[in-house]
C-alpha cells in the first residue's frame, strides 16, 4: 500500500473517531446541564473543553447555545464536528480509489448533511437529534467498512487511527475529571450532583450500561477508573484500544521489511503489558495525573513510530536494500544520484 494512502486512511480513522466522540461529549454535557444548578455550569463546560484538550483559555461566559454552535456547525473552529467530518472526507477523497464506493458515499452524505445544516434549526429542534444523526453517520461508516471492506493493510490503518484517537480521547476525558478524584483511600459517597457527573463520565464513553453489568449500579470512583482504563472487554477502555493497536501493528508490520518496525510493536506491547497486569489500586497510589500524562505520551509515541516506519521513512534506507537492484547487481548508492520525491 502507498505510504501516502496509509497516512490518509489513518487520519480518516482518527477524524471519524473524533467526530463521534465530540458528538457524544457534547450531547452528554448538554443533558447534564439540565440537571445541575446553573452556577456550576461553567465548571462543567471547562471540563468539556478540557476533555477535548481545548482548555488553554478561560472564557468570559459559558453559554450552551454558543458552545453548541462552536462545536457543531462552526467552520472556523477546527475542532467542530463540521471540521472533523470535512477533514475525514478530505482524507477519504485523497484515497477514494482505495475505499469501497459505499464507504465514500456514506462519508460524503455525512459531509453534505452537516454542510447544509442550519444551526438555528438544529438548536430549535433540540441538538440531541442532530448529534444522534452525526454519531449514526460515523457508526454507519464503520458498519459498512466492517461488512464490505477487505481486511487488508488499509483496513488496519483505518482501525489504528480510530483506536489511537479513542485511547487519547478516553485518557483526556478521565484527565478532565482530575478535580473530582479524592486524595484519600476512603472516598466519601458522592452527592447527587457528583453522582450525575460520574454517570456523565461513563456516558461520554458509552460505558454506563456496560459498567453496570460489570460493577452493578453503584458508581464508585475506583471502579469507574478501573473500567475506563483497564477493562479488557469494553471497546472504549484504554486497554481495549491498546490491545487493538498492538494487534494492528503486528499485522501491518508483517510487510515492513525493516528492523525498526519492532520499535513500534515494542512500545505498544509494553503499554499493553502495563495495562494488562497493572491494578487500579497501584495506579491510584501513584501520582494519578502523572500516570495519565505518561499514558498519553506513550500513545503519541506510537503515533510517531507509525509515521516514521510506514509513512515518512528515509528513502536512502530503502535504496540501500540490495533486493531493489536488477538481478542483484545493485550496489550501495554513491550518494550523488539519489533522487528524492518532491516534498
Amino acid at each position, binding site marked *: *500500500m*502507498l*505510504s*501516502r*494512502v*496509509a497516512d490518509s486512511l489513518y487520519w480518516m480513522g482518527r477524524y471519524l473517531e473524533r467526530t463521534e466522540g465530540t458528538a457524544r461529549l457534547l450531547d452528554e454535557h448538554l443533558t447534564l446541564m439540565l440537571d445541575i444548578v446553573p452556577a456550576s455550569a461553567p465548571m462543567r463546560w471547562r471540563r468539556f473543553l478540557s476533555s477535548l484538550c481545548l482548555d488553554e483559555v478561560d472564557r468570559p461566559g459559558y453559554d450552551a447555545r454558543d458552545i453548541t454552535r462552536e462545536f457543531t456547525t462552526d467552520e472556523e473552529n477546527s475542532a467542530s464536528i463540521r471540521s472533523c467530518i470535512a477533514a475525514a472526507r*478530505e482524507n477519504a*477523497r*485523497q*484515497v*477514494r*480509489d*482505495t475505499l469501497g*464506493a459505499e464507504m*465514500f*458515499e456514506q462519508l*460524503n*452524505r455525512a459531509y*453534505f448533511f452537516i454542510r447544509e445544516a442550519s444551526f438555528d434549526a438544529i438548536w430549535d429542534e433540540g441538538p440531541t437529534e442532530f448529534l444522534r444523526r452525526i454519531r449514526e453517520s460515523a457508526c454507519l461508516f464503520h458498519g459498512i467498512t466492517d461488512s464490505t471492506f477487505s481486511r487488508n*493493510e488499509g483496513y488496519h*490503518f483505518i482501525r489504528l487511527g480510530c483506536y489511537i484517537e479513542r485511547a487519547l480521547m478516553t485518557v483526556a476525558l478521565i484527565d478532565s475529571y482530575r478535580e473530582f478524584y479524592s486524595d484519600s483511600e476512603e472516598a466519601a459517597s458522592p452527592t447527587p450532583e457528583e453522582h450525575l457527573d460520574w454517570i456523565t463520565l461513563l456516558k461520554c464513553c458509552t460505558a454506563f450500561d456496560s459498567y453496570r453489568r460489570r460493577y452493578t449500579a453503584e458508581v464508585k470512583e475506583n471502579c469507574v477508573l478501573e473500567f475506563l482504563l483497564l477493562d479488557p472487554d469494553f471497546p472504549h477502555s484504554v486497554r481495549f484500544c491498546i490491545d487493538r493497536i498492538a494487534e494492528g501493528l503486528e499485522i*501491518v508490520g508483517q*510487510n*515492513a*521489511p*525493516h528492523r525498526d518496525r519492532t520499535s513500534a510493536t515494542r512500545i505498544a506491547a509494553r503499554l499493553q503489558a502495563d495495562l494488562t497486569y497493572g491494578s487500579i489500586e497501584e495506579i491510584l497510589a501513584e501520582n494519578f495525573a502523572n500516570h495519565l500524562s505518561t499514558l498519553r505520551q506513550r500513545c503519541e509515541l506510537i503515533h510517531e513510530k507509525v509515521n516514521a516506519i*510506514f*509513512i515518512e*521513512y528515509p*528513502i536512502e534506507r*530503502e*535504496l540501500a*536494500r540490495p533486493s*531493489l*537492484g*536488477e538481478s542483484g547487481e*545493485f550496489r550501495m*548508492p554513491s550518494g550523488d*544520484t*539519489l*533522487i*528524492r*520525491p*518532491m*516534498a
Partner: protein
Amino acid sequence: MNQTQTQTTAAERDETLPPFGNYHLDHAYDEMFESASVPRAQYAALHQRVLDLSREEFVRRQKAADLSFLYQGITFTVYGDKAGTEKIFPYDLMPRIITGAEWSHIERGLTQRITALNMFIHDVYNDENILKDGVVPRELLASCKAWRKEMRGLKVPKDRYIHVVGTDLIRGEDGGFAVLEDNLRVPSGVSYMLGNRTVMKKILPVLFQRYSVRPIDDYTQYLFQTLRAVSPRALDQPTIVVLTPGVHNSAYFEHTFLARQMGVELVEGRDLVVHRDHVYMRTTAGLRRVDVIYRRVDDDFIDPEVFRSDSMLGVPGLFRAYQKGNVALANAIGTGVADDKAVYAYVPRIIKYYLGEDAILPNVETFILGEKKDREYALANLDKLVVKAVGESGGYGMLIGPHSTAAQREEFRAAINANPRNYIAQPTIMLSRAPCFVDGQVEPRHVDLRPYILYGDEVKIVPGGLTRVALKKGSLVVNSSQGGGSKDTWVLY
C-alpha cells in the same frame, strides 16, 4: 444545484403544455424526430415513455439522479471558480440513442483513424517519411507546441503511442458523423460515460429494459489489458499505476474511479521515486518497482528535469527511466503533435498516406490561418466562422463568429495577425440536437459524441461514449467548464 441554464421563469412556462410542446425543429439534424412529431424508429419507445410519465415524475427522477451523483462524489472542480468548488456534471435524463448500423460505421472510422495517427506519430519521431514525401509540411511540425524533440528515435513498447483516445464526433445537418477533434493526450470524461449508465439503470429501469442496449461495463477491464500490453517487463501482473496531479485537478474523480475500477494504485508524483533509471513507488512495505504509468499529467509537468522545471506534479528522472525502456507511459510523450488543431486538417491525407484508404469519418472543413489564402478568406468572414487557438482545449480561446460581438472579432483579428500559425478556422458547424429535459419540458439541445478508443494489442472501442450537451439554449459549446452537461449514450444491437 440547479442543473439547467434556461432563462425561462415559471410564469412564462405553460404548465398545461404537452411534454414536447416546446420542441421545434430547425435546420440542425434532430436525433429524435424525423419530422415534426414523428420520432425516428429507435426513439419511438423513449418518445412514448416520456408521454406516459408525468412532469412531476420526471422532475422527481431528475432530482434523484442529481443527488446520486452528488453523494457518489461524481463531481468536477471548476477552474477560476471559488477554490475547491465541486460541481456535479449536469446530467440529462433522456438517453441518446445510436443504432447498430450507425455504430459500426463509427467504429470502423475510428479504428482507421487511430491506426493511422499512431503510425504518423511513430513516423515523425523516427523516419520522417511523411515529411520527406511532402505530405505534411515540415515547418508545420516545427512550429507545433506539442512537438517533443526528446522523443526522436525513442523506442516505445509495441510502437504504441496513443493508448487511450477520446475523439470528438459531431453530426452535421445531413446526419453524417464527422470528426471535430482528436484528443490524443489525456482525454477525460470516460468515468462520466460509465457513471451515467449506472445512474440511468437505477432511475429509468423500465425504459432501459425496453431497449437492447450494448453494455459498456468492460471498459476498465480493457483499459487494464491495454496498459498491461505495453509493460516493459513481460509479467503476468506488472505493477500498473494511475498518475494524478492530485485532488485539486478537475478530473480527480475520474482518476480515482479508474484506479479503483482497475484495482491499481492511484499515485501522485510525490509517491514515486526514480533510482538508477527505474521507477519505484513508496509503499508501507518499502519501495516497489513500477512498470506502467497511466499518466493523467500533461507532458509539460511530468518530469521537471526535462520539461517544465517548476512542476511540482511530476517525477524527477521519470523521462530517463522512460528513455531506457524501464517504464511505459500511456499515453506516450509528445502525442499532442498529432492532435494539434493545425495538423488536424491533414488527417485525411495522413490516413491515405499510411493506409491507402479514404477516411471513413470525414473532417470538418478547416482553414489553416498560417496559410495566406485561408487566412485572407477567414479574416473576411470572421462573423461566419469558428476560430480556435490551436494550443487550447476545453472550449477556451474560441471565437464563435455568428454569436460574437464586433469587439470580440477585432480582438481575434489582431491576435490572428500577430500569430497566424496559432489559429485555425472552421465554418460554424451545426451540431445535431437531441431532446433534453429542461424545466419540466422536453427541449432540443445541441450534442456531440466522444467515444473512447483503446489501443494496446489491438484497437478496442466500447459501444457508445460520452454524449455532451450544450445545456444553454442555442449554445454550441458542450464543454463541462462552459456550462455543458452529458447524457447516457445507448448503442443498440
